[in-house]
């Protein structure tokens, strides 16, 4: 177990599971940490599972907020099991536990419909098209084809938890249909594991238009597909 406590801050944090630990150790490790660190000042506990579906290249998080001390280990293990079952080839990177002296989850309210998200994304893609359609790299290959822009984005989903304060799933991709398909499957697993009752809604998280740049282009018979990434999320290679 790797601890990352931050003195002077109002949270206590630990990584309770990483790849190559035993799959069945999540709950036990989590309980050990909670036993040690939970006190009367703790108002909320956040359990977070970070994973990637390697087949579809989908990076995602499942986060659960609860104020109840009892059963946190079982909760963490069930979250891990649900995440692992959400795809053919899921690699879980981290399971973390963070304890707060205040309720922090109340600000996370995501209640848009998936149609709202689709429309919002469509509008954003049109704005990006205005910005990039005159780009010399695109003009060099377009040759009368239709140009399709695919920016990377994040969809957050709020679920009604069975007993805790809040549950959030967060998925990162550039194709809404693939993202939605995976998110539906993931949410279904969480409901089946009795972690959540139902989906409450969604939120689309995008960068600023000026933050996007061309990552790569695919030239089809009838269209050019341009994949856009956020500059602010790039790290410059060290010399």
């Amino acid at each position: 177990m790797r601890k990352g406590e931050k003195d002077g801050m109002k949270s206590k944090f630990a990584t309770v599971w990483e790849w190559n630990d035993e799959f069945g150790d999540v709950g036990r490790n989590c309980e050990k940490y909670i036993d040690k660190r939970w006190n009367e000042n703790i108002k909320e506990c956040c359990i977070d599972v970070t994973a990637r579906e390697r087949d579809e290249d989908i990076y995602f998080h499942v986060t659960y907020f609860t104020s109840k001390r009892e059963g946190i280990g079982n909760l963490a293990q069930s979250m891990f099991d649900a995440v692992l079952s959400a795809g053919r080839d899921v690699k879980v990177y981290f399971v973390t536990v963070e304890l707060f002296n205040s309720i922090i989850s109340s600000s996370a309210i995501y209640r848009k419909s998936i149609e709202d998200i689709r429309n919002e994304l469509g509008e954003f893609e049109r704005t990006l098209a205005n910005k990039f359609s005159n780009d010399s790299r695109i003009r060099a290959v377009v040759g009368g084809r239709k140009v399709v822009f695919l920016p990377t984005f994040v969809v957050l989903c709020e679920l009604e938890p069975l007993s805790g304060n809040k549950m959030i799933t967060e998925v990162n991709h550039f194709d809404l249909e693939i993202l939605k398909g995976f998110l539906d499957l993931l949410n279904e697993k969480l409901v089946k594991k009795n972690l959540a009752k139902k989906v409450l809604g969604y939120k689309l998280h995008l960068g600023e238009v000026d933050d996007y740049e061309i990552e790569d282009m695919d030239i089809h018979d009838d269209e050019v597909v341009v994949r856009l990434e956020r500059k602010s999320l790039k790290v410059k290679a060290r010399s």
Partner: protein
Amino acid sequence: MGSGSRIRQYERRFYEGERVREEREDEIFHSVGFFGEYEVREAEGGGYELIRKNEVIGIFSEAKVEKGRIVFKLSHGVNLEVTEKGIREIFSPERAELCGLIAADGSISKYQEKKGKSTMYKICLKTNDQELAEVFSRLFKETYGVTSHRYIGHHTAEGKERQHYEEVVYSKKVAYDLWNFNIKGPGRYEFHPPTKYLDEEGKKAYIRGFFSGDGSVTLTPKEHHISIHSSCRECLEELRKMLIDLGFHPGEIGIYDKEPSPKRHSHPSFRFYIPEEDHLKFIEEIGSEREMHINKFKQIKLIDEERRKRRNEI
């Protein structure tokens, strides 16, 4: 090989032939070639000797003569390369690929079952993929002559009971051998490509091993891409640099992180893409050990070859 210093290992591997030389004085040798200050001679009865300044500094049973270099087989997947520039130890492609696989999905650890019990050394690969477990096992056997233990666990995925695999070798000697080359750790996701010990073939094999674990091939009706991921940014930079050395043009490293509100502690993840222009080169020169990747590579190859033709027509 052992838990001692790398210098001792080197000495044991390299200056090991002089006594044998005395026993072989009647042997007839003919020169294979000169590489800078070194001469390599082959014995009629088999075997090679490496000579510097008229002194035999090593005798080897196997050698691979290639343009501009000769490679002698040492032990545990380490070879000795002799070129105009001098001599250096390099990893065999099998050892390089094994190291790449451990860097992605494996671990090297030491632990005590209980207080007072002896320390255990464990080299392990955890995977959902049986074929990857088998690749690990084969590479381990070829490199160290050791058979790994397989532990099978069960979990549910896509509504079906599925297996996951833990391929394990318990060996202090192997753990120290890998630690000496800084292959994995101390952080769980920290790795360092042993670039100094990799020739071109070794670099490709190392990347293939890593990609088989932490690479993705995505194929959708709209687009396809090849990407490599890690939770260690500096390590991924080293891997990216290795691809540049091999003539690839990998994209910049990008960060995945969680939504900043509500503010929580986070472990970001990193990835870079192989651009479309390099897809065919990547498929042909690097490739993957996983069936899932290989099947998608076949489709991408068809699509990209078509597109390349079209692009040339524009």
